[in-house]
């Protein structure tokens, strides 16, 4: 039998973390909630075999990323894709850190969806290249090339602005 109580407990525990990951990919909290809802519905469907295998969270993360990528591909909703608010105060008006955060979200929004997903999975979720490839259903080489292109774009944005350069720690850069 499907253990709904266990699923509900799991969903309550992970939805905040999943929403943050989704937000970094789509740049909008409401859309992030939609992606999490869709991802958790997919988890519900697969729940009996997931609990047997003990890989609930990895599956949920993959489901949310897939929901985000599906949405980006289909453009099926009636909503126009939302970009981060570019009217946020500039670095001259507020602390530099705030400007840097806004600049990053803006630069992420300019990346193709799969490059965005690579950056978030590698540098926010701290996944390895192999694990990122597993989430995205592509080869490790694709993850490396997509991440490399994404970082080059992000760096050029930061280098061209007064807020300074961009570095990566932890994950390997290429």
């Amino acid at each position, binding site marked *: 039998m499907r253990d709904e109580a266990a699923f509900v407990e799991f969903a309550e525990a992970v939805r905040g973390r999943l929403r943050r990951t989704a937000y970094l990919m789509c740049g909008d909290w409401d859309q992030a909630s939609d992606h999490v*809802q869709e991802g958790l519905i997919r988890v519900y469907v697969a729940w009996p*075999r997931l609990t047997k295998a003990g890989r609930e969270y990895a599956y949920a993360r993959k489901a949310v990323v897939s929901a985000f990528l599906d949405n980006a*591909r289909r453009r099926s909703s*009636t909503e126009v894709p939302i970009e981060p608010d570019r009217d946020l105060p500039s670095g001259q008006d507020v602390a530099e850190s705030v400007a*840097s955060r806004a600049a990053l979200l803006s630069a992420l929004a300019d990346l*193709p969806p*799969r490059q965005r997903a690579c950056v978030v999975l590698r540098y*926010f979720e*701290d996944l390895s290249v192999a694990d990122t490839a597993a989430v995205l259903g592509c080869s490790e080489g694709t993850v490396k090339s997509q991440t490399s292109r994404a970082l080059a774009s992000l760096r050029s944005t930061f280098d061209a602005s007064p807020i300074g350069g961009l570095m990566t720690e932890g994950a390997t850069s290429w």
Partner: protein
Amino acid sequence: MVNDLGELLRDNVASTPHDEFDLGAVVAGGRRRVRRRRFAVIGGAALATAAVVVTGSLASWESGPPDFEAAGVPLPAAPTLRLTDAVTATEGTDYRVLASYTNENLNRDNGQYFDGVTDDGLILFRDGPRMDQLQPRFALMDPATGEKDWLPDLDIGQAQTRPLELGEERLVLLSGQGGMRVNLVVHVFDRETRQWDAMTWPDLPAVEDPFGAVLGPDDRLYVPVPATEGQPPKGGWPTGPGGEADDAGAEGDTYRLWSASVTGMSDVRDEGLTVGSLAFTDQSMVWTDSTNGEAGRVHVRDLETGEDRSFDPRSGERCNLLSFGAIDDRIVMGQYCGTYDDGVRDDRVQVLDTDGDQVVTLQGSGIEGTLASDAGGGVVTVTSYEPGGDGTYIYDLDSGRFLRITEDVSSWVTSGPTPQGQFLWNTPENWNRGMTQYLGELTD
């Protein structure tokens, strides 16, 4: 100043706004999905017998077709065909390709699609919505030359559309406006004046799924409005051999039937009828008691006399109705009927006549089928995910021919109304990142 990427990412989500997350909606959505996805799950492996014999070459299964008998899958109470009974079709002999179009990489962006074929043989070609074409645009494409006649802009934002009628005089498309529940909008393109006209109905209830609506021969849009939803048994669905919930034989959903005139926004009425699935032929309205679960009885209303009759479709003990169509005196019902030993699924495409007599049942493990062409005698398209037997199959209701057209399937769906004897299908391209769509025609 140097900014650390990981730190910036974490800082951006350090403060999370409150959300109205409805976990109950997730659970309800999951329960519904367990049923809806039954067609999409790939079944197990191997064999077949056939009560109806089709001559010709057999499709080749590397590891043998599913062993339905060994798995304990019941035989339908009807003449039965399995995928091994299909003849491998030869292009030029069994069918002709009239047109094709390739999208190399649909993972990267949305693309261009065949959305159906007009009665006079032109393809409704849709471009977008995609990154550089946020609002979809439409053309009528000549399959012989590939030449496209772009239609005036249809101002619908990024809404999805489904063609209801592709005639010589007009094109009728359906879309929905709104959020979770949408108001239906019908877009009519007059091919002579080249003008789009939109019709919506303030008195028509909003619905969750806009594409359940059907255009009747009386130029009315018939709209199923949710009435009751089938519930899972107490404690949840039993788990099948693969560990997945198995909802075969589920209680179905019902809908209150409303209708609205395509030519008058105030002409809306409750038909006073509760239905499951609904379809029209030129002479009759056909419906089931319920859908997305057990179908119940099939009802046929003679549109000329108003006389109703009904019958038990004898679909089997555990069949969930997942697709429904009708043409002339034929009714086509796509069903999931349970998962058996070794993960062998009992998927069926049942064809009946409007008197309730069994015509044929196509049975497979991991197949789904729909009435593709509702013109002339009708063509049923079957998509199979059966290992070794995967691909697109065509069952011609007119001649009874059962043909295997391709030996692979893509991740995308190509569908739309087509004229007599024509059908749409696709094949994967570029390691399944894209697809090639085809318009084909059965030869006599």
